[in-house]
């Protein structure tokens, strides 16, 4: 099946994979919002949402329905198009990351070998970086187009926070790349699966830096300065209503899931189930076990994010900047230096 020198079956296969991954991510996101409320409730010793359905399991559907049914308001003084583009861009940028994450080993269906990864590019980590740096545009455009002083200030805060923490994030990643020697996420995970220890053993400091920066990039408490209610009313999504507001809120959760997936893949072996030899079972079953393992790791990370959110209060803005520039970046540089010295001494 070739037309215009394309293998169309390949394209259809990838399209189906993309649709499945995006839909699953959205579904998981829906239940992450529910998880967030439940975790908050447990940490604050109250029952949490328990009315809609058994154990309140239908709550996210009710929330989603409510957001869709609400009246949509576009302020008169806003830049209409940018106001609409903003939340869409935030959502797109956060979903784009899933293209390079290896969700498992290959499965065999209908005589084809299907890789559970949309694109195995050998610049995978740089691609993630590019997407992360795009993520701030949704907030900036949305905040500016609202034509509201609070929104604008919040957008500027978000942008400067993202730029500051991107640097330390990149430096932590460089140290990881020095030990792995590749930029392809698939190879990084495969290396951890085959015999080696997980990368967390080689890069404990790098992981801590990466985790903190990921939290800052996702605008999670204690780094949620862009939506600090007590200073900025509601932050960059103040003028938004209905599903546009929903997109901004969902994008945060998608970001959280994606950064959990990246951390699991880069530092915690990805789809690798420890103390289990995948070659002893059929390849399809092994791939499913791998997928399940990765999902469990993601859920654990997401829980960690929530645990931190409901435990630690918000920083002040100068504390945030001090932490980013005066502690994270020197620490990341030190980590890089140590890694380099260790690699050199082993040669």
């Amino acid at each position, binding site marked *: 099946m070739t037309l*215009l*020198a*394309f293998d169309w079956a390949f394209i259809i296969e990838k399209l189906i994979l993309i649709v499945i991954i995006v839909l699953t991510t959205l579904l998981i996101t829906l239940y992450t919002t529910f998880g967030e409320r439940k975790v908050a409730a447990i940490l604050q010793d109250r029952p949490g949402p328990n009315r809609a359905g058994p154990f309140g399991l239908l709550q996210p559907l009710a929330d989603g329905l409510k957001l869709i049914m609400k009246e949509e308001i576009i302020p008169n003084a806003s*830049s209409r198009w*940018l106001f609409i583009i903003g939340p869409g861009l935030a959502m797109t940028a956060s979903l784009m990351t899933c293209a390079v994450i290896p969700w498992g080993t290959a499965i065999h269906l209908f005589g084809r070998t299907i890789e559970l990864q949309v694109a195995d*590019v*050998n*610049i995978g980590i*740089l*691609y993630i*970086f*590019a997407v*992360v*740096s*795009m993520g*701030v*545009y949704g907030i*900036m*455009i949305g905040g*500016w187009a609202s034509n509201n002083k609070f929104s*604008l200030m919040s*957008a*500027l805060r978000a*942008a*400067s926070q*993202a*730029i500051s923490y*991107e640097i330390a994030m990149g430096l932590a990643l460089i140290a990881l790349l020095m030990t792995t020697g590749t*930029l392809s996420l698939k190879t990084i995970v495969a290396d951890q699966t085959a015999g080696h220890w997980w990368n967390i053993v080689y890069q404990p400091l790098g992981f801590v830096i990466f985790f903190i920066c990921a939290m800052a990039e996702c605008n999670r408490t204690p780094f949620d300065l862009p939506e600090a209610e007590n200073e900025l009313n509601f932050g960059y999504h103040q003028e938004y209503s209905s599903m546009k507001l929903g997109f901004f809120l969902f994008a945060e959760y998608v970001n959280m899931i994606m950064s959990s997936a990246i951390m699991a893949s880069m530092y915690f072996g990805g789809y690798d189930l420890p103390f289990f030899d995948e070659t002893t079972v059929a390849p399809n079953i092994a791939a499913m076990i791998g997928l399940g393992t990765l999902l469990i790791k993601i859920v654990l990370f997401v829980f960690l994010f929530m645990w931190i959110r409901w435990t630690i209060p918000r920083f002040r803005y100068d504390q945030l900047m001090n932490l980013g520039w005066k502690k994270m970046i020197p620490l990341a540089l030190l980590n890089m230096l140590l890694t380099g010295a260790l690699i050199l001494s082993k040669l």
Partner: protein
Amino acid sequence: MNALEIIFYALSAFALVCAIMVLISKNPIHSVLWLILVFFAISGHYILLNAQFLAIVNIIVYAGAIMVLFLFVIMLINVKKDSEPQKQLFVKFIGVIAGGSFLTLTISLIKQAQPLIGKTVLLKEGTIGLIHPLGKALFNDYVVPFEISSVLFLSAMVGAVLIGKK
């Protein structure tokens, strides 16, 4: 016309339209946003030329970092349409003539350049744009220029901090 050429022409058209929109947008914020799209189109061209690293770095550095700063500054100084100085017709006229002559000059130079005569773009060829050969070339053949340019960056950074301290 194969698929590669279709993608090439589509990207080129996209880049040109966005570049024109950068120029004719009244609002500087819109200009910046169109410019970001131009960078994306150019990154697409880099990928067609098998220069993955250049493509992704173009997005990270230009579209992701520099344009955010541009946007930042424009949002902060809040340029209004009426506060912008109105240029006289005469000045505009001179600008068009100067720009047009420069364009003619460049095109004629490129058309006459000996190494370019009768050549077409090599799409999807060569490995120098991939990350491994590029890294090897940078740190073996071009290590001195590479290090000197990094010192240049360092000096720029020190200068910025110095100005910031005042």
